[in-house]
């Protein structure tokens, strides 16, 4: 794409979410942090909080980007995968750039993609060659350490035919950072009969604006399982990743768990386009408002005969403040597409609380039990420690504490 066209896109607003003036942020490439040792203890604790293992013992590989600096990636010996900075990969594999760079996400989508496309490239490039199955998850941590930082990330993940990969991405900012912006573009390519499990956990500082722009293309028989968890007081997160099923029998499952405490604004969606016969997709969102604001979008697009897809946007209001707006959308372009949706937003029914109280739980325990059940969406690929952390966080909720 021409530079002029990208320059023009710098003023293009995003389709959803509040428009953000990028000039208020510091778009520099200064290496504030050059190695893990430079990261504050509090910052490290936050990294662990978002699922990152600092010793990387149970990980096949590890990637850390702080601000706009990628630290040296680590790959366990004899692990058949490639992991490097996207910028480096572009220099090394020009032929791959032709094939994969900005092919799933258009660089002029909006100002956030444009600014990322115009500047030096950061982010991770991962490739798993055909037939290789990576046992341990690969972890990637995207971290902001500097106040008013504009962080640009361009990730490329290629899982070739018959290969399998599990990626855990944890995103967070140092507690000393108040205001910053994260722009994260991710392009995932899943080959024939390949499988990618991708779990992203967000735990940003209160005034960090977040604008991920992700897209996935899945070939025949490929599987994409995407999990997204955001439970913090992030002031302004907006994303609506696009997944295209372009090969026969491709499968996508997107789970999200969103908890919005007071002060949070989460505008989270997902679009799945089923373009050839026999594709299947499921979008399952569980949202909980504890005083913040949630817009939960979900769109299924049926373009081919004999596809099946289901969408669930279920929300629980645990506070008198804030709101949940569930917006499910089904677009059918053929008569033989089986698509359905279910959306429900409400409070916990008093009968359910009483039922558990009649079995001996007090009101607080009963509420926590119901909330845990509500979020029990059977998330595949979620590390145990993280699953436990989610449960613990939820256990602290209660009506009585006002949340």
């Amino acid at each position, binding site marked *: 794409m021409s530079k002029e066209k990208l320059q023009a896109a710098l003023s293009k607003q995003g389709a959803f979410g509040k428009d953000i003036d990028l000039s208020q942020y510091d778009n520099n490439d200064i290496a504030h942090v050059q190695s893990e040792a430079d990261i504050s203890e509090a910052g490290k604790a936050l990294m662990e909080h978002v699922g990152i293992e600092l010793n990387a013992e149970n990980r096949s590989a590890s990637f850390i980007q702080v601000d706009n600096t990628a630290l040296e990636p680590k790959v366990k010996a004899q692990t058949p995968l490639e992991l490097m900075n996207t910028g480096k990969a572009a220099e090394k594999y020009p032929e791959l750039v032709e094939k994969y760079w900005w092919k799933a996400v258009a660089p002029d989508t909006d100002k956030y993609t444009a600014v990322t496309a115009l500047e030096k490239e950061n982010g991770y490039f991962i490739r798993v060659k055909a037939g290789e199955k990576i046992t341990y998850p690969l972890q990637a941590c995207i971290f902001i350490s500097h106040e008013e930082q504009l962080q640009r990330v361009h990730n490329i993940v290629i899982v070739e035919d018959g290969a399998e990969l599990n990626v855990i991405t944890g995103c967070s900012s140092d507690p000393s950072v108040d205001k910053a912006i994260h722009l994260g573009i991710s392009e995932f390519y899943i080959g024939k009969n390949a499988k990618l499990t991708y779990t992203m956990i967000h735990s940003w500082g209160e005034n960090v604006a977040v604008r991920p722009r992700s897209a996935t293309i899945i070939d025949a028989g490929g599987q994409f399982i995407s999990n997204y968890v955001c439970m913090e007081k992030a002031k302004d997160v907006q994303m609506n990743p696009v997944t295209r099923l372009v090969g026969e029998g491709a499968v996508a499952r997107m789970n999200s768990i969103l908890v919005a405490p007071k002060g949070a604004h989460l505008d989270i969606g997902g679009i799945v386009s089923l373009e050839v016969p026999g594709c299947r997709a499921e979008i399952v969102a569980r949202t909980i408002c504890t005083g913040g604001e949630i817009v939960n979008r979900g769109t299924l697009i049926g373009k081919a005969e004999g596809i099946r897809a289901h969408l669930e946007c279920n929300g629980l209001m645990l506070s008198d403040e804030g709101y949940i707006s569930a917006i499910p959308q089904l677009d059918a372009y053929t008569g033989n597409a089986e698509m359905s949706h279910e959306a429900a937003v409400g409070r916990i*029914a*008093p*009968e*359910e609380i*009483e*039922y*558990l*109280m*009649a*079995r*001996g*739980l*007090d*009101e607080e325990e*009963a509420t926590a*039990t*119901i909330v*845990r*059940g*509500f*979020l*029990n*969406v059977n998330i595949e690929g979620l590390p145990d420690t993280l699953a436990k952390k989610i449960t613990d966080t939820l256990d602290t909720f209660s009506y009585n504490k006002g949340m």
Partner: protein
Amino acid sequence: MLRIENLSVAVNGKQILRNINMHIAPGEVHVLFGPNGTGKSTLLGAIMGFDRYEILEGKIYFKGQDITEAPCHERARMGIGMMIQRPPTIRGLTLRQMIGICGASPEEVEKMANWMGLSDFLDRSVNEGFSGGELKRSELLQLMAQKPDLLLLDEPESGVDVENIALVGRAANYILHNDNTPCGGVNCDKGCCTFNCSANPLAAPQKSGLIITHLGHILKYVPASHAHILYQGTITCPGGDPLDILGCIGQSGYETCVNKGCRRIRK
């Protein structure tokens, strides 16, 4: 075990029960008869302590303690267990987890569920898509784990087919006898009424119960000692013989039975 004194109860500001008095001694199982809409479930709900039942007057004592103001979960922990007529579904909470909440160990869960014919339901959300009979069995399974000293059963036979009534009755009897070892299972052919094949099926219960029933089928399996008719919000025929009263209701209906027959059949 349970003493109710001069109890009046309202629901949504409307008085449903007035001046109820009742005493259930340890080991006694009482039956509550009465036409629909007369307040039977209200009485059980008020004993359990559900929020929507507003106590206007009177006292409820359990094991000698005044529980009139006690919250529901405290009553449950003290030993009151209730089979709920239309229990809600709790999505994502499995029946297995629910029985655990009720107090069963993982081994007990398996054993009890097998006995109740609910092994295949353990990993389903509690009550989700359960049929009428399955709901009753699920409730009794939870109560088996809860081991209450006072068992409140709200229409245990409603929506249950003939075969399952025997199971429901045996399960209720098991809870009342506090037997420990399950016998052969649902289809045990030794003719016993409880888990424990050696136990005398009609031995006096060790615990107490209060049962709402319309047709009385459950009485074939659960030896009730006293019966009451709840009619127009108050108790008539207190403490009568359950089968006599059931016969009278069957013959002449509630109204006649209450107006004319009560004196005759009262003990």
